[in-house]
C-alpha cells in the first residue's frame, strides 16, 4: 500500500508539473463527476495494479496508459454478442470524438487466455480499430486483473467446449490513472462519447 501511495504522489507531482499543466487538469478533480449516461466511479479504486502482456509480449500496467484516457473492457474473442458490439461501439465513439479521438485508448483484456492467443487477439481487436490494444495473461493473472476490477466471469459449458458469461462494463480512467467512469453495454456510442468528453474536461 505504501508503495502504491508513493507512486501516486509521484505521478500526481508529474502531472501537475507537466502533463497536468498542458492538458489543463483541474486540481479540484478528485471528487465526483456528473455524467449524463454512465456511472461515476471517481470514488472507486479499481484496476490499479493489473499486470498483463500486450500482443507483442510487452508487459503493460495501468501506468503504461498514463497521458491517455484508457477505456478498459473485459471479454473474449469467441464472444458472439457483447464483445464485438462493445468494440464496434468503441470504434464508433472514436469517430464521434473527432480530433480528441487520439486521446482515447481502448484496452481489451481477454478473459479466455487459454484460447485467445496473442495472434488471434491482435487480429481481432485491430479488425475494429488499428489503435486498439489487447492484453492477456496467465489464468492466474487474468483472475487477478478481473478481481481488481470487480469483473465477474465464469465458464458456461457448451457441447464439449465452453463460452463465458462476464461483466460487460467499460471502465474509463482519466489521464492520471484515476478511475472515472463506468459505461454500461446498453449505452450507444453518442452517449458514451458525451460522457468521455466530460472526463477529458477534468483531466
Amino acid at each position, binding site marked *: 500500500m505504501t508503495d502504491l501511495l508513493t507512486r501516486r504522489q509521484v505521478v500526481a507531482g508529474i502531472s501537475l508539473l507537466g502533463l497536468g499543466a498542458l492538458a489543463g487538469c483541474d486540481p479540484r478533480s478528485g471528487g465526483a463527476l456528473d455524467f449524463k449516461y454512465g456511472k461515476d466511479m471517481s470514488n472507486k479504486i479499481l484496476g490499479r495494479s493489473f499486470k498483463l502482456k500486450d500482443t507483442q509480449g510487452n508487459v503493460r500496467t495501468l501506468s503504461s496508459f498514463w497521458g491517455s484516457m484508457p477505456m478498459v473492457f473485459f471479454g473474449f474473442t*469467441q464472444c*458472439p454478442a457483447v464483445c464485438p*458490439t462493445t468494440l*464496434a461501439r468503441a*470504434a464508433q465513439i472514436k469517430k464521434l470524438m473527432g480530433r480528441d479521438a487520439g486521446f482515447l485508448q481502448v484496452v481489451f483484456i481477454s478473459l479466455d487466455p487459454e484460447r485467445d492467443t496473442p495472434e488471434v487477439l491482435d*487480429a*481481432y481487436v485491430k*479488425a475494429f480499430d488499428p489503435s486498439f490494444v489487447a492484453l492477456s495473461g496467465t489464468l492466474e493473472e487474468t483472475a487477478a486483473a478481473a478481481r481488481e476490477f470487480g469483473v465477474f466471469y465464469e465458464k*458456461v459449458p457448451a457441447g464439449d467446449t465452453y*463460452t463465458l458469461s462476464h461483466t460487460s462494463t467499460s471502465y474509463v480512467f482519466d489521464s492520471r490513472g484515476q478511475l472515472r467512469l463506468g459505461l454500461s453495454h446498453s449505452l450507444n456510442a453518442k452517449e458514451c462519447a458525451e460522457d468521455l468528453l466530460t472526463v477529458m474536461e477534468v483531466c
Partner: protein
Amino acid sequence: MLRNPVKRTLAALALIGLALPAVAQTTVSDAWARATVAHQQSSGAFMTLTASTDSKLISVASPVAKIVQVHQMTMDNDVMKMGEVDSVALPAGKAVTLDPNGYHVMLMQLNQQLKEGEQVPLTLVVEDAKGVKQTIEVKAPVRALNAEAMSGHQHMH
C-alpha cells in the same frame, strides 16, 4: 421433405396476399453471420423468424462448425450471461429476432474462417404446436466483424 414445393407455394400465396391455412410455415429474413479472424474458434449467426402458427425453433445445424447451439444472452446487473436454450418460442405471426442482444445461433469449433461476403449455410428445424417439424435452409451472408456499428441503435448521423 416437401421443402421446396412448400416454399414455392408459400411464395406464390404471399404474392397474392393469402395466408397458408393448414400447414405451419416459418419464414426467415435478414440472416447474417459475423466474420471471424484467422484461428478464431467461434462466431454467431443472426436472423428474424416469423412463424404462421405457434411454433418453436428447436435446432440449427451448419457445415461450417462442429457445434451449433441456440444461446440466449441476458444482462443481469451489467453482467452478460450466456446459456444454451432448448428452443425459441415463435408465436404466430410475430417476428422473433435472433440478434446480438438476445437469442442467437452460436457457431463453435469452426471448421474454417468466416470471411466477409461468403455465405454460411444453416439448417433450421422448427416444430409447430402439433409436433410437425419443418426444415428450413438458410444462406446467411457473412458480415464484417464490426458489423454492429452499421445498424440498430448504434447508428449515428
